């Protein structure tokens, strides 16, 4: 791993380790090392350096809400904004606990795409009507409720 104009360049082993951690961050160094034919101490060293460089930001748990009895729905919200206000809108959305992800996209217009979770359709609508639509710079909103997921985190 080398620092190149502030950007960190990774070799193939680093990439393999990252992929292994993304699949399962609870694997041991020995398991990862065995998979790629290197010593566990090498894996430890590579991971520690990637943590120190901020490449690995954190380790999280993905919770299956249905298994713990939490009824919820997920929707993808596309927010069309005034370009001058889009950054503020994106920041405000990022602060809301109902929002899981926020990204921006530039196609014909500047869009903010956000993943939203809510207990039900009424809660989803109230959140968008009361917290998102009134934000300065929001021009219009399109929302698609996810009904079935074919690929995603298991």
């Amino acid at each position, binding site marked *: 791993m080398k620092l190149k104009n502030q950007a960190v360049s990774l070799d193939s082993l680093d990439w393999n380790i990252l992929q292994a951690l993304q699949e399962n961050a609870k694997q041991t160094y020995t398991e990862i090392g065995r998979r790629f034919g290197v010593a566990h101490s090498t894996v430890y060293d590579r991971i520690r350096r990637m943590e120190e460089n901020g490449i690995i930001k954190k380790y999280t748990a993905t919770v299956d809400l249905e298994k713990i009895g939490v009824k919820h729905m997920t929707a993808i919200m596309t927010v069309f904004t005034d370009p001058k206000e889009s950054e503020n809108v994106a920041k405000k959305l990022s602060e809301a606990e109902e929002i899981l992800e926020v990204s921006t996209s530039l196609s014909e217009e500047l869009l903010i795409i956000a993943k939203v979770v809510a207990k039900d359709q009424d809660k989803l*609508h109230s959140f968008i009507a009361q917290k998102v*639509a*009134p934000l300065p710079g*929001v021009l219009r*909103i399109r929302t698609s409720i996810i009904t079935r997921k074919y690929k995603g985190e298991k």
Partner: protein
Amino acid sequence: MPSSVARILRKLPRENAFYFFTSIGNYTGENASSLEEFVKKIGEVNAKSLEFHFYRGDFEKWVAEVLEDGELAEEIMSFKNLKPVGDALRSQLYLIVSKRFEKLKSEFRG
């Protein structure tokens, strides 16, 4: 002039405005932050948006709780059993709300 009339006719902050949607989460970009603007928007917005809010009870809720005009809220609710849709809904809603707005405006002017 009763102070309640001035209150009903006041300009609202953006967080209390009425935001017109066509379905769950789909905002048209149109909003009204006073009774006067509400009248105007009823004449302009997509009829689908009027139907969405009318049958969810959003109009009377906003009129009663935010504008604080219980009388207008009752009037809006009272013609729900006629099940109006499309342009018929727009016409009737516009008639009721604009009539109320003109009445309050003349009371305000004294």
